[in-house]
């Protein structure tokens, strides 16, 4: 029983969250004596693909077709469908990132498989897969009614393998005609030199306690020291102190970093819903009664304008040592 992993890529390189999906697929395939096949659509790099053997990939199939350079979930879903027709796989694994979120449900609908979004672990002995629901306030153990599953996996769902193997390479042609491609990307804008919030291992987040956008310099410096992404509470993005894509919480982005700093954020239930799955939470707030302290691992009751520069200096010393 083989497993297919969609190898999401940008600028010809497979994205980091996909490594987790590969290791997840490997563990899934191994339990049934199968292999892991990967499919990359559009530009790829041979050495990069081979190196994925480290995480458990057996064969990397590349589709060298420039028409895949615009992400069009319909055309991508067709290509994956054609691949499965030619190379039967019981399950299909994605990472739960932007493209995975858009594409995996389509593939599940196309192949009539059960979809598990945001899988947090491998299937348990009873076959159920756990995922977060109610904005991190609960978990659901999902039972599949179909023979196979499409799983979009979170970070740390299976743990990264570290094997001394190379993936073998193959090419694949899904044979799509031009009318399969309907979406045209006319412009891509990336923020250079910053870490995408959804991929960040560490996040430094600040709220209305900072008083105004002019005070974010120390937040950015702290994020820089920690190699962290910056984030904010909803009112901060609503009034335009920070861009919308930094808004975390129930109505913004959900993050699950190893380390989350909350600075001048009260810890309203809607904010916590988007960050409560972080591994370690540190809160800095002048108000000892701020609800965030109840959700925190470590807390400092103090003024951000005093604490953050001191913290930044201490961390710099720590990382320099």
């Amino acid at each position: 029983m083989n497993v297919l992993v969609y190898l999401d890529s940008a600028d010809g390189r497979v994205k980091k969250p996909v490594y987790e999906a590969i290791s997840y697929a490997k563990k899934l395939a191994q339990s049934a004596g199968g292999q892991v096949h990967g499919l990359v659509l559009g530009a790829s790099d041979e050495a990069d693909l081979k190196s994925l053997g480290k995480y458990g990939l057996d064969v990397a199939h590349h589709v060298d077709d420039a028409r895949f350079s615009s992400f069009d979930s319909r055309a991508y879903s067709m290509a994956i469908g054609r691949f499965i027709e030619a190379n039967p796989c019981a399950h299909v694994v994605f990472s739960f990132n932007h493209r995975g979120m858009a594409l995996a449900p389509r593939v599940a609908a196309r192949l009539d498989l059960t979809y598990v979004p945001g899988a947090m672990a491998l299937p348990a002995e009873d076959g159920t897969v756990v995922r977060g629901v109610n904005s991190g306030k609960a978990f659901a153990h999902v039972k599949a009614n179909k023979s196979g599953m499409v799983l979009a996996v979170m970070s740390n769902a299976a743990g990264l393998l570290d094997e001394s193997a190379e993936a073998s390479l193959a090419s694949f042609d899904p044979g799509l005609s031009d009318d399969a491609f309907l979406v045209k990307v006319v412009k891509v804008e990336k923020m250079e030199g910053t870490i995408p919030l959804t991929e960040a291992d560490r996040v430094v987040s600040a709220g209305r306690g900072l008083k105004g956008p002019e005070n974010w310099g120390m937040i950015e410096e702290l994020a820089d020291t920690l190699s962290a992404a910056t984030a904010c509470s909803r009112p901060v993005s609503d009034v335009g102190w920070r861009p919308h894509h930094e808004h975390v919480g129930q109505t913004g982005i959900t993050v699950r970093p190893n380390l989350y700093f909350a600075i001048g954020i009260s810890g309203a239930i809607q904010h916590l819903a988007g960050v409560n799955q972080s591994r370690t939470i540190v809160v800095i707030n002048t108000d000892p009664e701020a609800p965030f302290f109840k959700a925190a691992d470590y807390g400092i009751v103090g003024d951000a304008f005093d604490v953050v520069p001191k913290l930044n200096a201490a961390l710099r010393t720590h990382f320099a040592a």
Partner: protein
Amino acid sequence: MNILVPVRKVPDTTAKIAFTPDGKSFDANGVQFVMNPTDEWYALVRAIELKESLGGKITLINVGDADNDQIIRKGLAIGGDDAVRIEGDARDAHFCAKAISAYAKDNAFDLIITGKEAIDDNGFQLASMISEYMDWPLISQATRLDVEGDIFHLSREIEGGHEDIEVSKPLVVSASKGMAEQRIPNMRGIMMARSKPLNVIQAEDASVASEVAKYALPPEKGDVKLIDADNIDELITLLKNEAKAI
């Protein structure tokens, strides 16, 4: 421009989440339900803005029982023209998407737009499954949607940035923050909503792709360790040795 807006009923954002003793169902006791915020604030409001400038009609569609009529009426009060409720259990996304697309196929829509995620399900899946059943393109987590003739112009979030996109109609969109601003229904809207059509139909295909064997609550968080503001080095030590986070 005829627009279909799937809307979902979810527990209010402040609701205490609990389950029945067997762990199989959500405990709705004392819980207030609202329209899913991204459906209401971003998808529905943008649909209304497009209708205001281009004309056409907005149909709300919902999967659920009669308890959902309250949020459907709210959607009509904000600016929907009519509504359809498909009788059934909204827990399985395959079922919802199949039922909604079966309705959409029988009626001529140019656009299907809903929120990027439901705050109780967090699956980011409905719009995407609908698009596959319709065999239409999908732009997910879109932050902008403009129309020029038969062409849609959109922006969508990508890791660390955004993309601008062009695509012809028909199209499925899932909406993110940035697309529109929340609208509060006014008295006139609420009065008018009472007489707008809300048709209840049955789903043809009742099969589900998944079930929830059990719900569970996360373990209680331990007490916070407070560190003195004048003793930052202690925090560094804890982050390093105890949390192993730096």
